[in-house]
């Protein structure tokens, strides 16, 4: 069943945002007021994020060197993805976006306040990534009653041999346009802070 999550609420991944910005506990030193300022920027970024997501679980029809064939004859021509899905009964296809507001704010700030822009950039990326974690958990709660669960590992379009063309397949399958996510001719998702991923579905026993 395809699901849309038009207004996702997640706990902001504060530590992951700081890590992405290079913060190392015990080593990075912040002067008085600096942490307050950075936290304020992070909070502003979080307020600008409007998380939306989508998911779809499909059975696996075939796996091999040529890639992965899913229910409905959906093909992902990626040997690496096929490797990751070995032993799985299905695939969880998902997408998430941090929304247009944060991306526009990053672009606006890039010109005259790059500090703000890099913080917003980290917030957008980590929020979108955390949204995928959330989707995995949400789908997991559904699957458990059928003695199934999603895998922790996931694979994203544009990495390894899973070409960006797969982004179009996912975009169409999940009807991402309905969530305000577009696709450029070069297969990039817009708004920029949008991600797609494929995880496996395995049986519990």
């Amino acid at each position, binding site marked *: *069943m395809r*699901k*849309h*999550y*038009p*207004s*996702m*609420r*997640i*706990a902001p991944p504060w530590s992951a945002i*700081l890590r992405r*910005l*290079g*913060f*190392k506990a015990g*080593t*990075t*030193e*912040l*002067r*008085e*007021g*600096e942490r307050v300022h*950075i936290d304020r920027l992070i909070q502003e970024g979080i*307020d600008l994020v409007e998380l939306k997501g989508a998911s779809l679980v499909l059975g696996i029809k075939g796996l091999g060197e040529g890639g992965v064939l899913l229910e409905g004859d959906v093909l992902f021509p990626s040997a690496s993805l096929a490797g990751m899905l070995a*032993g799985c*009964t299905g695939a969880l296809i998902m997408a998430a976006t941090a929304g247009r507001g944060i991306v526009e704010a*990053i672009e606006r700030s*890039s010109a005259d306040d*790059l*500090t703000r*822009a*890099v913080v917003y950039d*980290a917030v957008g990326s980590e929020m979108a990534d955390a949204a995928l974690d*959330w989707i995995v*958990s*949400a789908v997991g*709660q*559904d699957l*458990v*009653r*059928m*003695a*199934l*669960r999603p895998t922790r590992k996931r694979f994203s379009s*544009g*990495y*390894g041999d899973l*070409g*960006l063309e797969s982004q179009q397949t996912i975009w169409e399958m999940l009807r991402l346009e309905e969530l305000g996510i577009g696709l*450029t001719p*070069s*297969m*990039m998702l*817009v708004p*920029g802070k949008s991600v797609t991923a494929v995880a496996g579905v*395995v*049986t*519990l*026993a």
Partner: protein
Amino acid sequence: MKTRDRIRNRLSRRVLILDGATGTELQARGMPPGVSPELYCAEHPDIIRSVHKGYMLAGADVVYTCTFGANRYKLASYGSADARELNRRLALIAREASGGRAMVAGDIGPTGRLVEPFGDLAFEDAVACFKEQVQGLAQGGVDLFVIETMMDIQEARAALIAVKETVGDAFTIVTMTYDSSGRTLTGSDCVSALVTLQSLGADAVGCNCSAGPAEMVPLVAAMSPLARVPIVAKPNAGLPRLKGGVTTFEMGAREFALAGRALIEAGASIIGGCCGTTPGHIEELRAAVKGMRPSSGGAPRALLLSSHARTAVLGEGSELAVIGERINPTGKKALQEELRRGVFSLVREYARSQVAKGAKVLDVNVGMPNVNEKELLREVVKQVVLACDAPLCIDSSNPEALGAALRVYPGRALVNSISGEQDTLDEKLRITSFYGAPFILLPVTGTSLPKRAAERLAVVRKVVARARDYGFGKDDILVDALTMAVSADAQAPAQTLETIRLARERLGLMSVVGLSNVSFGLPERKWVNAAFLAMASANGLSCAIANPESEEVMSVKHAVDVLRGSDRDAHAYIAKFGAVVPEKPQPRTHESPASLVARAILEGDRERIVELVGMALDKGEEPGRLVDEVMIPAIREVGRLYESKVYFLPQLIASAEAMKLAVERIEPLLDRGGASAATKGVVVLATVRGDIHDIGKNIVGLMLRNNGFTVEDLGKDVPAERIAEAAREKGAHIVGLSALMTTTMAGMEDTVRYLRNQGLRCAVMVGGAVVTGDFARAIGAAYAKDGVEAVRVAESIMASLVKGTEGVHGGSR
């Protein structure tokens, strides 16, 4: 005896025992993975019958029907449609198996969809779906209902409303599932869920699944002080462990049962087991808690409000609560226009800013002429829910609009208001009571406002008496003490204060004022408002509808909290006023202006850097020396601190931006022939075609400029042809290329090839999240992992070019 009486009777004597897991028991009996347990049970009634019997013989007082996923949305994935009939059939099987020796609970689980405003399932569609299930279960003869494993409070509400609207007063248990952070996936905490669900009519509230008994104890303990209904705990057999790809629950029956005792001690009175538990676990659990008496409750006197993720406690001992008044179109043209156009950006902004300023509750009012208030109020409530976590006060005189907003609000909202008007009193009380919402009592009966406190109290008495018939208690009512303008009637404030005092002393009721009315018509209203707030609180005021963006009002509120003891040890007061923002450090007398410039760069002080550079120049610093001997060493020190991780990215960028401002200030003064004014090299930067990420490239550009390079930034998604053209035109020494994705890395190779084919011999430097040194070498480019390294690599390239060395690739990492 009715089920409710039967359960209450048992709970007065002992703990009520629920059954254990169904899914894992069915799997143990051969149910294959991936099938619908409900359809499987309908096809294999003997198997589910044996599960029910197993639990009944183990001593469960209640067995759950195997209908957890028997709703139209879940069943649709299996090509099955008749949810009502399936529920009826499975309920009959459970009844038959129990033989009347255990009560049968009609089990309702999540649809798997999120309900608006958090998801795409319309609230009424969710209610309709659950009604189908409830009808089938009722036809099958269940004794009670259980709504379980809910992760979306809104879905739990929809299911509970479906039960109430279908079978009236059936005993209904609602349990949510919380992750290790103590919240549901949609962010609800257990206390807010408890407040919302118990007021909406759940007979017992609690938690199930996700955690073992030990992890559930803190949840039960958190709910217990505010619980007005029995608390339920139905934990898993410990935390799931993944062993060789198989999820297992390792807690044995005895261990589980002993841990279950702690749940009772924490305040639970209805317990059972979830995933991984067996009849053995339930048998041991029953034996372990034998003789334990359930908690008798006794929640303190307080008015409880909740959003989906936050609880507000109003009442004696609680803080003076400010109800933010700004979401109200009266006198706000911009807001009126937005609301008429169906745009809600100002609503969201007001919501966030009021909460940031300390509003505990937000008043939401959309009353204006020529709008559909019912539709608009419902939509604005949804928008505010998405914008912030504060509980709401729904403000309308229109009963239909109130009902529509309360229905979709995923919490327990305060209703503003119900007056003594005979025409609307019963209708408003009926609606408000159905959703379990507390209300503000407006002591008005006709068109004129009672002037004297005694008259107001008479109306209050009348409304409270009628409200009691609808199940309202004193903790569900806030008396509006009717604040009138002191500029119109000098005696009016005294009557308001008297109303507050009498409501508290004579009727034991909490009160609220619309604060700003008191200062109407006066200049500098904030002082009158703040003073009146202090006076009202001295008379026992519980909360004020006010503008939390008034510093004076909020300062008085914080002071009042300290003085009346609700801000224990003045924590909140000190947090607000103790951390006084330090003045910007003034130039130390012993520090030279040049040293201050260096410090401003090191500290990323963009506000003062230009002024400090000016001071240094005024003191006779030579511009070229300031750049070469002060600023460049300072920014290099920043780079060193960044590379050793003492600084992180925002600090690096803040320093780089301060440096940029300093350079811009000083550049026109540099000796054109001097070393400082000469460029170190020309760099053309671009994110390659197909890639739209450019923040890393922007950082590199900033760092290079600060270090004396001339940078031409072509932006993102740039074709090789344009890069070659710019490189030729600008006489670039270096072309810097960025890409974030492995797939767009190929664009780097294409660009390098194109540059070479065009006869351009400039060096190429690449970087980006997935780019490596090996990849760079393979395409004949230098590699820099970040902005700091990019400067070093670029300098190394330029040094090699000066020496006439060929094949410079630099940046080995």
